């Protein structure tokens, strides 16, 4: 198990990565900004899971259980992306036709 110093060091790394992510948000990088922000988020998540959640010291059955969840989540995200990217553009909803509105009943009947 890590020592107190290792936990404080991990926290310092997390703070530094968060600061880097914040500063990078002020730089215009186009499409790279999304990729970089998410890459930093993944790095922070891995640090938290491995050190703070002691995932690195868990029995392999626990690591597999959690890893399987992550794998399914990635599969879900990939399938959503494939669906949205390859889908035909959604055509705008057609305007309501006259027949859709109820026909007024003639007075006197």
């Amino acid at each position, binding site marked *: *198990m890590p020592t*107190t110093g290792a*936990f*404080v060091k*991990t*926290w310092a790394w*997390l*703070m530094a990565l*968060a600061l880097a*992510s*914040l500063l*990078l*948000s002020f730089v215009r990088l186009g499409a790279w*900004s*999304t990729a970089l*922000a*998410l890459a*930093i*988020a993944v790095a*922070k*998540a891995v640090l*938290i*899971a491995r*050190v*703070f*959640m*002691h995932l690195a010291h*868990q*029995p392999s*059955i*626990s*690591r597999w*259980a*959690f890893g*399987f*969840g*992550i794998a*399914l*989540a990635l599969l*879900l*995200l990939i399938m*959503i*992306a494939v*669906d*949205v*990217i390859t889908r035909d553009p959604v055509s705008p909803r057609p305007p309501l036709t006259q027949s859709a509105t109820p026909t007024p009943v003639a007075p006197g009947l």
Partner: protein
Amino acid sequence: MFTGAVQEQFQDLEQQTHAAELGMWAFMASEVLFFSGLFGLFAAYHLEYGDTFRQAATHTDLMLGSANTFILLTSSLLVVLASHAARAGWSGRTISRLLGGTIGLGVVFLGLKLLEYAHHFREGLLPGQFYTNAELPERGARVFFTLYYAMTGIHAVHVSVGIVLMMWMMVLARRGRFTPAYQTPLELSGIYWHFVDIIWVFLWPLFYLLRA
């Protein structure tokens, strides 16, 4: 309950602890899938309304959102130190002080989130049909704020549950229930708290950093 006594279906305390941890990790896997559905929804709409989403992100409060990131990361450090303190045999008072710090930071996080929501309400940045902001009338902005309330709201509920859990752990620590041989409830509550922290680590860039 939570005394560290070995239940009859287990051979020893180690096996019992592993079973409890496995259960917690399986729960965490289900939580990953729960949140990934929401992240998938965000990604799908981002592909459709990318530019509007980036404009809408300039209307969230970068300062409060970023402060909350540093607050949650620090609260996670206090939780892991509390669990380390229990393993190292430190006093229940020390463990409960560290947990008190976590609870305090959790409450500050929720307070700042509520402050942010109040600002948005005043600007008409509300979810779905209640959206009335004239500065950003696009449909994409309405979708962005609907997702914003859904995702940060569900996250805030998780933080609230975490605070209650930490209060419970504080009581157990004060009663001297945690020893170097047994600190499973504290360890499992910590896993939950860190997971909630990880979710915020991904919410922060999506709603605050990726701006026009």
